[in-house]
């Protein structure tokens, strides 16, 4: 099972849209895919029309296999399941802290699912916390959507520093530009600079499109309601790049 996490300390950069749309594409190709909505806001769950409620809250989540399996819901899409969010996740850090190895609880919780799914994609809350550290431990790659502004660049550097300090360099970072508006000079300049200075950046970017904003009203993945649009195409290309990097 390949574990990816959609992460950025900043909110509103397109983490959930990334999670939902890439998971949709993975499932469409026949891969058994699980999305884990770890954000107490429950946006991913909302897009999948699944109630952000988990029996037993965070405690139920970190229990034994049978329990985690019972909490999973099938989305309307074939091959795609969801572990929904729960409002109690805002206290997740407290629960994680009480474990023997606080940064490994998440990894332990997903172990039993290893043979059931080809991909696990985690939608992370925008924060840096014990939960994030757990995600860094459990994941093999971080999808990091970034709006191309100077501040986001700074945030990116902070992330790299953090990971280095915590000896998490085995974690693959897959940064890409999100909510891109090519009419803005700042966006173009930041993207330009970054492509030159950071070869690790994914080539494909996601545009700031109303098609994507519509996810909230459509409550569906973009390729399902706008399959021939530029946004769907952008996500498809992004997914191809991500897969290539994972090999």
């Amino acid at each position: 099972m390949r574990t990816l996490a959609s992460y950025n300390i900043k909110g509103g950069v397109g983490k959930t849209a990334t999670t939902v749309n890439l998971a949709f594409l993975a499932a469409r190709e026949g891969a058994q895919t699980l999305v884990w909505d770890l954000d107490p806001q429950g946006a991913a769950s909302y897009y999948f029309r699944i109630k952000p409620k988990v029996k037993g809250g965070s405690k139920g989540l970190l229990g034994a296999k049978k329990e985690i399996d019972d909490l999973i819901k099938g989305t309307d899409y074939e091959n795609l399941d969801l572990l929904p969010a729960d409002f109690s996740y805002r206290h997740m850090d407290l629960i994680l802290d009480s474990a023997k190895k606080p940064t490994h609880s998440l990894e332990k919780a997903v172990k039993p699912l290893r043979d059931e799914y080809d991909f696990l994609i985690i939608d992370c809350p925008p924060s840096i916390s014990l939960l994030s550290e757990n995600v860094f431990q459990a994941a093999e790659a971080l999808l990091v959507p970034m709006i191309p502004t100077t501040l986001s660049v700074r945030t990116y550097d902070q992330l790299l520093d953090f990971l280095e300090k915590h000896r998490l360099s085995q974690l693959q970072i897959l940064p890409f530009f999100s909510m891109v508006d090519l009419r803005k000079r700042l966006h173009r300049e930041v993207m330009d600079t970054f492509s030159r200075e950071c070869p690790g950046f994914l080539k494909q970017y996601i545009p700031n499109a109303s098609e994507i904003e519509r996810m909230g009203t459509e409550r569906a993945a973009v390729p399902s309601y706008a399959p021939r649009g530029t946004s769907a195409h952008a996500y498809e290309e992004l997914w191809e790049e991500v897969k290539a990097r994972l090999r």
Partner: protein
Amino acid sequence: MMLTSHVYRIPAAVHVHHIKDTLCDHLPMHLEPASALERTFLDTFDWRLYEAGMELEAFTVGSEVLLQLRSLDSGAALTSLRCRGLPQFIWDLPRAPLRARLEAVIEMRALLRQVSVASDVQTLKWLNKDGKTLLRLELEESQIQAQADRSAEHSLQSRLRVVPYKGYDKPLKQALQVVEQRLGLRLDEQTLMVEALRRLGREPADYSSKLTIRLDPAARADRATKDILLHLLHTMKRNEQGTLEDSDSEFLHDFRVAIRRTRSALTQIKGVLPSARVEHFKQGFAWLGQLTGPTRDMDVYLLVFDEYQGSLPAGFRNDLLPLRTFLQAHQKKEHGELVKHLCSTRYERLLTDWQGFLEEPVPQRSSLPNALRTVNDLSRERIWRVYRRVLREGQAIHEETPAEFLHELRKTCKKLRYLMEFFQSLYPPAEIKAAIKDLKVLQENLGDFQDLEVQGTSLREFSRQMVEEANVPVDTLLAMGMLVENLERRQQKARQEFSERFHHFSQAASQERFEALFSPKLEAVA
């Protein structure tokens, strides 16, 4: 994760409307617009997927194809894949879980359309207030689309599929209650594919390249021999079409193996059939064997080409590509020649005469030495004799023995193997399987040894031909030279392994097994 669909049969007397109405009356179902589906069941000619417990269904939805792989047992969907057009070979599919799962099963065989079914589907969805689907019910009315004749429609049973969604157990429970208690529907006993095939007069897995003939131990040896040969003739005929069309390489392979077995039977099962006729047909089949050789050779090199490439260091792999082009061109040419011969009157006459001969009843009395013996007796005698020869020839081989002796032993082993396979049904299955397995271990080594030598020789011949035919880059010749070197090394290794392999075959436990099966029994005292 995919869950099992529950598929229920709708009895012929019941209207699908009635089912739909009852379901809508008792469950909060939302009616979707009706749709028409075309689905084709794919499997190889020898039913590899079916034998592996799977079913591959291709749904045509507009211009795209959705492939669904299912477990035959549980009906649970294993994985799915969208692609453009029906795949002919597994490598036509994009790299995805479905392809990865089937590659080792299907290998080089073509995926054939075994049967196509057209269905009118009415979908009912149980939606919650968020518009989330909690359960899906599909009412299906299906007909077969017979391939040759599109107008002939065969109606199949109507079905109700109950498709659950993970984590929503209550709706599933409620629905099953209505379906089973109120509607009294029962689970589908045969899948749609099997029902459709049977309606066309076929059975799944109705072809296997294995020798599945069942003999009566008390039967006359001559009649039993003719039956074996008829079985082989049948196999040849089944593979004719695929061979002519070159749908995949294995049709010709199975065709050739049937020819080889025929020739072996004619030679090894002595004194049962009139020698003049046997001679005549032996010549005919020798001609056939020769005919099919060149095309099969090209097929084999093309099949092993990827392995050849992989055996070279990365930088040299592309240098080999002109060899593939050469092989493909020659394969086409040889196949063309083969087709001409298979369409000739000589071939037709050979098969007709052969079939006529085999179907002739055996004479009441026969002066042939073995004709009237029981097949049980004769098989035991022949197998034992050849087995002893294998032991003798193998024991005479040591480190310095020239290669021809191993090649001879290989041929003797082949004779033994064929005999054991012809008469397999006469012996206790577990024991004879074990004995064949022992023989296989030895045969593999001898086969490799000879094969590697032939490959080396052929590659050198190809390189000469390629130079004659066109401007072949020097790098290609160098790469081919590297291949030859690898092959020679592997051949030496095979030679070294021989004594261990033969030891395994001739050890006490194995000899006891063969003795128990085939050694001449002492006559019971009357």
